[in-house]
């Protein structure tokens, strides 16, 4: 038995957090709906909770939102008092909210101290599924499903590691040419979203062989499908957002594989999609189980967001609705096995052989009603088209004391401040949680469409820098003026470059 371990302290921390009478379970609320509805419905007090959250409702310990193709999903979690035990995880029926087509699902979970991964090393990988702007056809969605399933299975079979985050689509990253690299402090302007998968896997630092085996598996997968592959640059003093290119995207091979695997599937954009959120106590292999089973049922994946909230595993998938499927299908929640059948009915776009062979698993699933999709106008590579009127990403990071300003409120403030400079603003992704020192730490990616169209790439870079700096200062002023947070207690950084968020730190 190795004497040195940090997992025992993580176990003690989880148990200590969950031991008090008022925090021995986790309440959560999941909201599915069209993008842009805001977060008001998310942090309303629970109507029929015993005991009710009341004033605590606006201080969730965890907050997570994901928005893509005009559909949005948000989750909040609160520590709450325990109720009579019936099962480790429960999710309620869909409840309509004040916004149209928006449904909330209230859930409950027991603490899950058996899932420990804190001291692990992380491998971040960026898989590129296409070099064009993000406009996935039905066929692309099916390939994405297969790639996600294979990636998640690799993490389990070779890395013996859980998925910490998995997102698609994400902002693509293109290396600068040597002639344009300068001193390396700048980077090419990035698209807000692109046909890429970003996956972060927590590997045990004691098993480097498993890590290399997983990476080698990713390389083999990328070669098989012609995907581009970048891994996080793990040289000392490198930060998240810096990538090391392993191989570039091979368009011809990708097209061949896509045509070979799914020859008859249509090549146009899905017009409607629905969100499926699969939840359960976080376990190794959960994402692989879920995505593989859907993929085996001939269901494609338009977008995915996998992570865990207070040790509850979430696999959120945006699934393209099959042509001719019932657009009036209602929101639904229930057992995973029933959910798979329902999803297959609505979203099957390919007749898979030997469909639905998955094992019975105790996950719960929440399905949104079908919603219309919208796709961003993106340029092909750099984001600077002739008009420059394309969405650009802005990254946000914040550290605020708990119970001072809630993450949804903070994001709304940033969005409002951006409105002066942007024609359209959307929170594409945000995640915040209460951590060490009772501080809420969060990261977000906002997508902005500048009101004043930039002339060229350099102009766009300069504009984005200026906007980010102004909005950052304005938000900090507002926080200070409203006396929400004491002076010096808040750290907030908004930047058009992801790696500028954490100047110091190590990725090793």
């Amino acid at each position, binding site marked *: 038995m190795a004497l040195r371990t940090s997992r*025992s302290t993580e176990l003690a921390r989880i148990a200590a957090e969950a*031991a*008090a009478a008022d925090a021995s379970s986790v309440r959560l609320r999941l909201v599915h709906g069209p993008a842009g509805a805001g977060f008001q419905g998310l942090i309303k007090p629970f109507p029929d909770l015993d005991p009710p959250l009341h004033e605590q409702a606006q201080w969730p310990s965890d907050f997570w939102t994901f928005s893509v193709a005009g559909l949005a999903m948000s989750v909040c979690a609160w520590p709450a008092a325990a109720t009579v035990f019936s099962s480790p995880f429960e999710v309620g029926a869909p409840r309509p909210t004040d916004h149209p087509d928006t449904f909330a699902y209230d859930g409950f979970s027991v*603490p899950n101290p*058996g899932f420990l991964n804190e001291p692990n090393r992380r491998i971040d990988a960026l898989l590129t599924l296409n070099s064009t702007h993000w406009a996935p056809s039905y066929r692309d969605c099916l390939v994405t499903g297969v790639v996600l399933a294979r990636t998640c299975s690799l993490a389990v079979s070779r890395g013996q590691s859980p998925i910490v985050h998995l997102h698609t689509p994400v902002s693509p990253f293109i290396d600068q040419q040597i002639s344009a690299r300068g001193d390396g402090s700048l980077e090419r302007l990035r698209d807000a979203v692109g046909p890429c998968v970003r996956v972060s896997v927590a590997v045990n630092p004691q098993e*480097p062989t498993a890590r290399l085996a997983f990476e080698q598996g990713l390389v083999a997968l990328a070669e098989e499908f012609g995907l581009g592959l970048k891994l996080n640059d793990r*040289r000392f003093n490198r930060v998240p957002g810096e990538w090391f290119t392993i191989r570039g995207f091979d368009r011809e091979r990708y097209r061949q594989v896509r045509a070979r695997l799914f020859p008859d599937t249509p090549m146009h954009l899905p017009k409607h999609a629905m969100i499926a959120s699969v939840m359960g106590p976080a376990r190794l292999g959960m994402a692989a189980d879920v995505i593989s089973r859907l993929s085996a049922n001939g269901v494609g994946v338009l977008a995915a967001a996998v992570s865990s909230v207070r040790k509850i595993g979430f696999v959120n998938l945006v699934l393209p609705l099959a042509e001719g499927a019932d657009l009036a299908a209602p929101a639904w929640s229930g057992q995973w096995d029933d959910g798979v059948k329902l999803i297959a009915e609505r979203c099957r776009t390919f007749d898979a052989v030997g469909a639905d062979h998955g094992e019975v698993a105790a996950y719960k699933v929440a399905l949104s009603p079908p919603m219309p999709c919208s796709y961003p106008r993106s340029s092909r590579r750099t984001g600077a088209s002739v008009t420059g009127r394309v969405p650009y990403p802005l990254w946000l990071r914040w550290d605020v004391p708990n119970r001072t300003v809630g993450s949804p409120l903070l994001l709304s403030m940033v969005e409002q401040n951006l409105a002066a400079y942007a024609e359209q603003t959307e929170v594409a992704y945000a995640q915040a949680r209460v951590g060490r020192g009772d501080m809420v730490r969060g990261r977000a990616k906002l997508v902005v469409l500048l009101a004043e169209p930039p002339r060229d790439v350099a102009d766009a870079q300069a504009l984005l820098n200026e906007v980010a700096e102004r909005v950052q200062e304005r938000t900090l002023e507002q926080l200070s003026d409203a006396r929400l947070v004491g002076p010096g207690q808040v750290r907030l950084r908004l930047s058009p470059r992801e790696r500028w968020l954490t100047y110091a730190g190590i990725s090793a």
Partner: protein
Amino acid sequence: MRVAERPDSADPFRDLRALIETLPVPSAPATYTQREAALGLALMDLSLRLEHVPRVAEHLTLIDRGHMTRSVSVDVDLQAIAGAQRRRITTGSSLWIPVSRYSRSDLAPVVVKDSTGAVVPRFTHRDSNRVTAAAFVRLLSMLIDAHPDVTARDTVVHKLRHTHQRSRWLLEAAIAELVTAGSLPETGIRTPLDYALLPALSGAPGREVDARAVRDLALAGLDELWPADARLPFAHLLRLACSQYMLVVLLDAAHPRRFLTWDAPLLPGRRPRAPIQRLVQSLLPVNREFVVEYETAIPRSVGAYHLTVEVNEEVSVRRFVLSSDVDDDFVQTLRQDVEMLASASAGAGVGVGEQPHRKLLELELQGIASRLAEVGRRRLTDLTNYRRYMAERHRSLGVAAPALLGADEVVAALGRGDCSVPVLAAFAAHYSADSMRHLARGPLAGEALPALAAGIRDYQLGHDITTDNDPRENGAHAHWRHPPLDLSPHSTAPVRAVAYLSLADEAPALIEGITRMVVGLALVVLGIGTLLTGGPQWLYSGRIVPDSVPAQADAVVAVLLLVPGLLIARLDLPSTHSVLGQLRQFQRTIAFLSVAVTTGLAIAAGTVHTDHAITRALQAGVAVLGFILVCCLLEFLARRARRRNPVPWSDRLPHWLTATAPRPRRAYAPDAVFDARGEV
């Protein structure tokens, strides 16, 4: 590994099994309240991390050769404790705050005082045991509730949770007993079962109500809840709980910044066996040093740690170095990465039987090289500080100009497993100068990797050193600071530190007084001989001068007895139990030997009546005194050599430091080892 690791103590699951087999099966659940469990878990969490303790200072006083007093003072910052945690440890307007952990074998009472000198209330061991047991029982219940099988009927976990609760109560009782009573003996008689000859099982299925069935289900539950590959975190927590106590004090929440101090129980020293070395040190003029090693554990979140040592005024601190393993996790991971890459490059495979992709190999090598360069930079800073410290001690220990290494020479040296600090420093310089851009095609990629991994392991690059900065001769102080950039940010394991302290009898030392005494005695004997024989020829000539026998033997005897007696009375010969007594053991021996010589001569003068005998006695006496004088001179030479020794000969100091010595030497066993880590 050269720095000795303490062998791991027994697996607590073995103890749990033994207790499940022997404890009476409970017929009702344990009565722990949720508040007790919350308090116990919060205290356990806080005591493991100690994030609210930004500074620790320890003051050690060596009272004799085997005992040390230890006074600990800590700064406590209650604001570092999160609001949710504070609610769990609040009682009235005060908070229960763990400030340290210590071994259960230390049973002396500890009195904690604040900066005003007022005694601070403490949590009793009984209460501490009870809340810790409640915490583990609660943790057990959480693990059962979150287990995947908890809703699957007829599984072991489902039975434990819903239908066969006596087995769960037994499991809870076993955990509570282990936490309350501590670990079972590792060997010998452990439980009542060791005394009983139980009848063999009949093989027929027993009833579910039988104790045997209840115990079997509890044992099965143990395996189900903690399979062998996933029991480490819980086992580690349980082992800490049953081998250590928490020092928990009650502090007023209105004063968030506090200063606390307490006298820890007297620390007994361990004396490693080294009979030949001890004999040599006692009998030969080797300028004996008294070497003390002090082992301690510093909480990972502590920013500053001060270690002060004080010894008898007549003893001087010759060397004081503190070495901690703060970067060890980082270096171990680096070594494992190099080993993994070595086996993958050698075709051992990465699970798929092929060589790693070239760009993957480059990424791995770049990651390894950048980390190795950082380690090289850090250790070079340590080595520079150490050399400055040595140069202050002795002018001859200044730094010589280093040999300059080219990029190829550096890589070749690393490929031979030479991870000494100069090589790593040169590597860091070349890496920073972009000389290591393409490593996958270079010589570092292939066969050099196994030797590099061995070098990283052997040189103990994860251990830093801090040197003495105390101007006193009989005191030492080391100020260890947490590195501003933590290389192991996820680790919460305490930093282990070893202080190496070498004590010596420096000038004005006893040996100088003894040398003067021996010279004086030799002159007295020479004078007596010369006066009796009428000239100095007796000393070097074999001829016997007639009438050498003293006419008044009583006077000669009186001189030969009184002079040494007076001289030795003026010497301060300490007790052998003290450190000073140990340091002056050889000096004592030669002082007594020289007196024995003169006493022998006095006896000869009083009893011998022939010229031949008295001349030979005087010659023998002068020869022995001359020999003693040579020993004294050798002792001076040995002291000079020891003072100029650039690196202490200890295996507790990192090998990268000891390897800088001009000649490799065998490490000496310390005279006393004090362990304050509280891990036993």
